[in-house]
């Protein structure tokens, strides 16, 4: 009996080293990028050439975007918070994965998230980690934060490729008049089980595809103050994201 007690003590003590109980499913929220199914990662930055819907050749040297209010809601209306906000930076692997602290049971959920910040959250200067990495959106354009920064070059066969700065955020209608430009997503029937990995995928090609076939010669740089370009990005963004679980 004493032997059993000592063994139990040793085992219990070892188990208590773990940060969480093994019965609680740990979930992982991953942010991945692809170009029509081909994975896009840090190694592709400034090196891999793509052809967009308009047959422009382009590369991507910087890709950062913001996803906020990632939540799961079950059929009883219980909401599980996965992430307040995440600045995804393809050049920084640490930014591609989040481990939610909330306990999330296996089940089927409606998953919601916001590309960018909605008006409630897009508060100028409110987020120190975003302030320090050049993510603010100019006050003259409505303030708050960028939603996306995709920089690169196109017309790659030219002697000197042309730059593009595909930056998205609040849309400036006119002096002092601004329009929210985030996109809210609601994905039904998201099954969380197995390994507990939830993945938000961005298909970069979709930014250039529909409903507007993006013509880089028409919209390339200085797009931040360009209302029309900002709204076209918003429209094209509707088909950019997908959710998978495993």
């Amino acid at each position, binding site marked *: 009996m004493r*032997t059993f007690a*000592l*063994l139990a003590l040793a085992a219990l003590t070892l188990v208590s080293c773990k940060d969480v109980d093994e019965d609680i499913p740990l979930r992982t929220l991953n942010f991945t990028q692809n170009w029509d199914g081909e994975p896009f990662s840090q190694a592709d930055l400034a090196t891999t050439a793509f052809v967009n819907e308009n047959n422009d050749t382009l590369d991507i*040297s910087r890709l950062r975007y913001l996803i906020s209010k990632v939540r799961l809601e079950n059929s009883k209306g219980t909401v599980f918070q996965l992430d307040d906000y995440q600045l995804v930076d393809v050049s920084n692997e640490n930014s591609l994965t989040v481990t939610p602290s909330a306990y999330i049971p296996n089940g089927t959920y409606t998953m919601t998230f916001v590309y960018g910040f909605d008006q409630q959250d897009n508060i100028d200067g409110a987020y120190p980690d975003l302030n320090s990495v*050049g993510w603010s959106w100019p006050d003259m354009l409505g303030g708050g934060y960028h939603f996306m920064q995709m920089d690169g070059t196109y017309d790659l066969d030219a002697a000197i490729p042309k*730059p593009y700065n595909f930056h998205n955020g609040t849309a400036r209608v006119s002096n002092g008049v601004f329009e929210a430009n985030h996109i809210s997503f609601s994905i039904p029937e998201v099954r969380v089980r197995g390994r507990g990995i939830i993945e938000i995928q961005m298909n970069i090609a979709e930014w250039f595809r529909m409903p507007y076939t993006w013509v880089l010669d028409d919209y390339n740089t200085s797009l931040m103050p360009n209302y029309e370009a900002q709204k076209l990005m918003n429209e094209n963004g509707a088909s950019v994201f997908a959710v998978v679980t495993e």
Partner: protein
Amino acid sequence: MPQLVKRAIVFIAALAIVACTKDSTDEPGADDAYTATPLPLKAPALFGQLLPVPTIPADNPQTVEGVALGKKLFFDPILSADNTLACADCHKPANAFTDSRQFSIGITGSPGFRNSMPLYNFAWNSSQKFNWDGSATSLEKQAFEPLRNPVEMNNTWPNAVASLQDDGEYPILFEAAFGTQTIDSVKVTKAIAQFLRTLVSGNSKFDRHLLGLETLTESEQNGFEIFMDESRGDCFHCHGDRNNPLWTDNSFHNNGLDSEFADPGLGGVTGDPQQMGLFKSPSLRNLAYTAPYMHDGRFQTLEEVIDHYSEGLVYSPTIDPLMKTVAEGGVQLSVQEKADLKAFLLTLSDPEFISNPDFQQ
């Protein structure tokens, strides 16, 4: 049950308990149970409001004794091979801790090949990459290098440590800071890093403007708007904005200086061909005191710097796409816009910083 087995089980349980105790050996002073006097970092009001908490290594907390020792070391030529060159000789307080010469001169009379970087606000460097090429991944590691660089102090660490150990005063100061009179390179760089972290600059005219204490002139305000306008200056993507009082993104860019690179910058450290010719965005604070400019000090005046971005951009394969007007040579500012932009940039200088008695020898 045999006694030996019982003891083994108890031993395993004890081991497990010990293993659960996190980071016990990482606690400051845990090695020798000595703890110097804590010295919290003073953060300007805007920093506390807008920036993440400062990065201070767990194994090198700020202390009164450590900072005092670091300051003495910073101003003391004892670290150089011939006792003639101190850190402060190439990082002068009056120049916001940079050098007014294009290239600093080492003890052998040879120049370096990059302009000395100014020193301030390091605890808020979120990337924790230091030097123009990002070669140092902590302030402590950065402080390790100049002592043994042939074109700087040209010393060896064993020699420098011996000099300090033989000194009448230093062993006592190291004991006060670290609890032991035994000096080594790690403690030297820790002390210097502690002093460097106290070099905080946060009281410029623009800071006071944001706090409602001072008003910008019309020219300065126009300059700020040019700085923030993607269609004109577009400076903010790399150099911060009113919500980033560091005035740098602490990242690396090819800003269109050359078509070919005599100095590979970040690419020389990482070996990545796509990072050739990239250098760290310097903070725009204290430009009034930090000429010459750029990683190689090629521009003597702010006018030359602004002209570069306005008309002087040069294409190279790794140029940052943010240098979007390279085909036209730059952003083509008018004479008035250039004057206004310069006026704004000068509002980021902080006279209190360069005259702070805590930072003088």
